[in-house]
């Protein structure tokens, strides 16, 4: 699934959605049903240490268990980025672009079950986008989506449910960010 997302994202660029277009899309970031604050959360959960950021402030690919990643732990769409990197704006734009792709996939998936993504509670949208971004929309199990849709916090905040893995071990950065963001909900 990660390969498919890579392909989609890379294709988007290869089909001529150049930097200018990417910038245009980023100007539509606030049109995503998510807040800039949520994007900040995604960034902090992906790469708080700013791995790959050089002294020039640009983001270059860095080694991870999944291979090289760039920016906010995204697949490297073009090997040329090893030399030229991304500016901070390009990294942000690529993140938003990928989130838009995920959002589109989620809409289609939920629509099949008669669920309107726009009418979901913000928390539902955010969690679905979050996991769609990292795990791939196709890999989200129906019962998992249902628990999120219902905001069943008891289930959602059980580590059996929310723990994500970085290769063969839990991804502490993402898990901590997720639990700190939503953990209080379970006590309400």
């Amino acid at each position, binding site marked *: 699934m990660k390969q498919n997302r890579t392909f989609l994202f890379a294709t988007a660029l290869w089909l001529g959605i150049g930097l200018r277009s990417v910038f245009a899309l980023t100007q539509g970031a606030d049109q995503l049903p998510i807040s800039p604050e949520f994007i900040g959360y995604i960034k902090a959960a992906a790469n708080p240490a700013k791995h790959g950021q050089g002294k020039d402030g640009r983001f270059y690919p860095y080694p*991870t*268990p999944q291979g090289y990643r760039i920016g906010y732990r995204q697949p490297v769409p073009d090997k040329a980025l090893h030399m030229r990197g991304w500016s901070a704006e390009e990294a942000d734009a690529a993140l938003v672009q990928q989130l838009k792709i995920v959002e589109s996939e989620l809409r289609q998936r939920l629509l099949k079950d008669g669920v309107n993504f726009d009418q979901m509670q913000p928390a539902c949208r955010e969690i679905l986008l979050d996991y769609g971004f990292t795990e791939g929309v196709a890999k989200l199990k129906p019962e998992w989506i249902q628990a999120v849709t219902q905001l069943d916090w008891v289930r959602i905040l059980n580590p059996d449910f929310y723990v994500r893995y970085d290769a063969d071990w839990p991804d502490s*950065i993402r898990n*901590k960010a997720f639990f700190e963001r939503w953990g209080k909900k379970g006590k309400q």
Partner: protein
Amino acid sequence: MSRHYLNILAGLTCLGATASILSAAPISNQIYEIQPAKDGSLEIKVGQEMSARLVPSFTVMVSGLDPGYHRNNSNYLLAPRTSLRWEKYKQPLEELNLWLQEMGFEVLVTEDAKGKRTWNYGDGKMILTGQYAQGTTNPFLVGEQVDLLPSETVIEGRTIRWKFTSDSRFTFSASLTLPEGKGDPEISYQLSANKAGFYSAAFTGVPGVKEGNLVPQTSSGRSGKQFNHVVAEVTEKLPRVQVSDGRKNFLLVVHPESIPFTEQLINFNTSRFGTMIRKENGVLTPVVFAPLMGAASSKMRAGESRAFKLFFVMRAEEWQSALRYVAEDIYGVRDQRDNSGSGSLSAAIARVRDYLADRNGKNYAMWHVEQKYYDYWSDQSGMFKPFSPLYGLSAAVVLDDEDFYRQRALPAVEFAISRATNVFAPYDLNDTGQVSKPSRQLGKPYVPLPQLVSLWEFYQRRTFVFRFLAEQVLPPSGVMDLLAFWKLSGDGAQLEKAKAAGEKGLKSESGGSYMDFLELYEATGDKRFLGAAKARIYTQIATGVNLFPKVPEEEIIYDKGDKVPVHAHSFGRHKAWGFPLPEGLPTVEQKAPAWRCSEIGLESFGPHRAELWPNHPPQILRIATCSEDRFLQTVARWGIVGRYANYAGDNRTERSLITEKPDAPEHPIWKLTYSSINPGHAWEFIGAMLDFRVTDCFDRSRQQIFFPGLTLAGSPFRVHAYGALPGRFYGEENAHLWCPPDLLEIDNQQIEWLAAWGNGKLYLAFWSQSFREEEVTVQINPKRATIATGAPLLSWENNQPRPGGTSSGQRMEFKIPAKGITAFAIEKADIKTTLQAKMFDPSAPKMGSESIKTVEAPFGKVHGMLLSMGRGLTNAFIYAEALPKDVIAARLRYRQGNGEWKTLQDEIFPYEFSVWLEDSVGDFEAVMEVDTKRLEKQESPAIVLKSE
């Protein structure tokens, strides 16, 4: 002279008025004679050998405020890290610097306008500020010091009672009783608070020794040269403080009744006493504080009381004998453990193997194929920190598990010979601060010379690369290097050099590793080295192994509420890992004997009372066997017998039977809240467990079942690694250790077993951990060994040969005496080995000097080598030293013989390839091509590797 001694002299002078009461007849028992003196002190004699003067002097410390209480930690040049520091009190600066100077410390303490202190230990050493520069480690500064001498002394039979003048804040009384028989004088005191506050008390009247001999103990600090600090109960190994001048030993020993076994392990806050060696004017005096100022028991409400008892012990013998006396005679340490809780170690080893091998497909041990090892989860995820490949390699061979060799042991070997460090960080890390100096350097092995030679032996001296790498490390440095070089070269002169190096270490009783001396003894048979190993293992035990609290003869309830108590470590870690508050793992509440969860025999070297690392018990047992030391045998057995059904983590802070659960680690990591779990440490555990199993059989057979172990010198968790070399079985040589878990089933968990093959026979040894005779039924798996009914066999019971008999076939029934051993050598056994068949096949290919090659490529060095464990087990291992900052992907084009060219790709650093080869098909040829960061393609010269 200190205020303390002036007070004693003044007080004793005042006691002169009651001389008439004190001129009484001496109180005696079979060991001691106590004569009250006119000045109120007590003259104590032990035979004609020893006499000393005991003064009824006590000190009570009173603090109106909570003194704050934490470990000394960073100020370790002053006092041990684990000693205590009280933050709310401090010594005036000038006094402190004067005292430090008197004590020989080269340090200057300064203070700024805000009262913040800086400790400057000099250029190149340490400059300390912050928390550990504040406060004091001197317990006599924590509050107001009230020195007490009795105002009245009364003798009642065998008891001398002392009364003291009341203080408005507290009431104090004390006594000394000499029991009948051989008992030591018991000093009792009671402290009652009249006013709420924090209180501590100490008996300060023990005689001292002038500049005494080093006695290894927790309170003696670094190299036995740090004094005047306090060690809390949680850190203590045996509640005694001992000073010695080489002839006389004076000990204060906490009475077991004052520190009873508790359902929960003692921790920092619940510590009930502290120990100290006081040094004043060159005189060393033992002191025990109880209550311990700052700990929970020191906080007293008005009307509350604390009572405490100590033994004063005088012994004229070496310090080890005194240690044994306290452990065995006072604390009742004796062999109590059996397998009734956990089942056999033999079965546990199989489960640890399954966990490491991920036999259930859940990968709870976090093996990472790409990096050839387990994630270093607990301390720094994304990093890889093996301690040696030999633990797992030994397991693969002894358990005859080819899949384990291919999937785990071989990758770990490849890691070991290619990564220059065992703190390897291939990925950009989110730094937890738990690991220093991770590295990405490649190009040479992280294992030292002795382990390279062990690898060479494991590969049956057929894989040249290990010899080659070992020779790169030469010349040898130190005893273990010299021994390794001797094994590598066969040159007897190297053994002589090793002996000479060892002999230098014999000149003192301390210094040098006990393991070095043990291995030197094993190589030479020279009993002087065994003696040196034994002396040092006693030091290891005295400073590292728990020998208390006394185990009650009762059952206690474990895992109340059907949950395993949560390990203290889990709270902080769960928060760091993004998990909710830890909850106890579901289990079953049980009542079981107290010994099952006693921490006796376990180490404690950090903040945790019970460390579960089992690397020392096998060595303690081996030294015990060779030197016939039953105390050491007891301590060794406490460390491991009947404890583990699987790997159960590194340490614990709570009592639980979780370590006895067969599936203890087989859960997602967020459920493993009962211990500090670094899953990859099961790798070291399996090696240590195997070592104990083999050594236990060695001990039980009175050394007649012996398998030589190879060294893991250089690894901090050092054990012997077995399987490479044949051993002997009751006089029959060339027996190959062979313990596949599916070889047999035993219906009795008290029984350990070990098997070997050789000389056309199957050798089986069964020994019992039970204290009573046991009946045993063994079913041998025909897929592993077919035993003909009526085949001749030899047998031994408790090491005595029995008349020759015949086999009953696949099923065996017999009895084993209590703690006994029964063994068999069965002829005409059709033995089906798997990995071992290939490993010991005489037709296995040999790798010579043409099997290793390093080429210079435009992108750096590329190393190629052939590793051959045996017939059909040869692989080529090729890796580049290039780093991810320079190279982003690599491809290996290769072929064997005239086969077709194939290509493998690697896009994750390190850029390495492991390719299985076929025997006798021809040379291995390869070229590595890389994509650089500049998107250039670069190619290495061809690498051709040949077997002989």
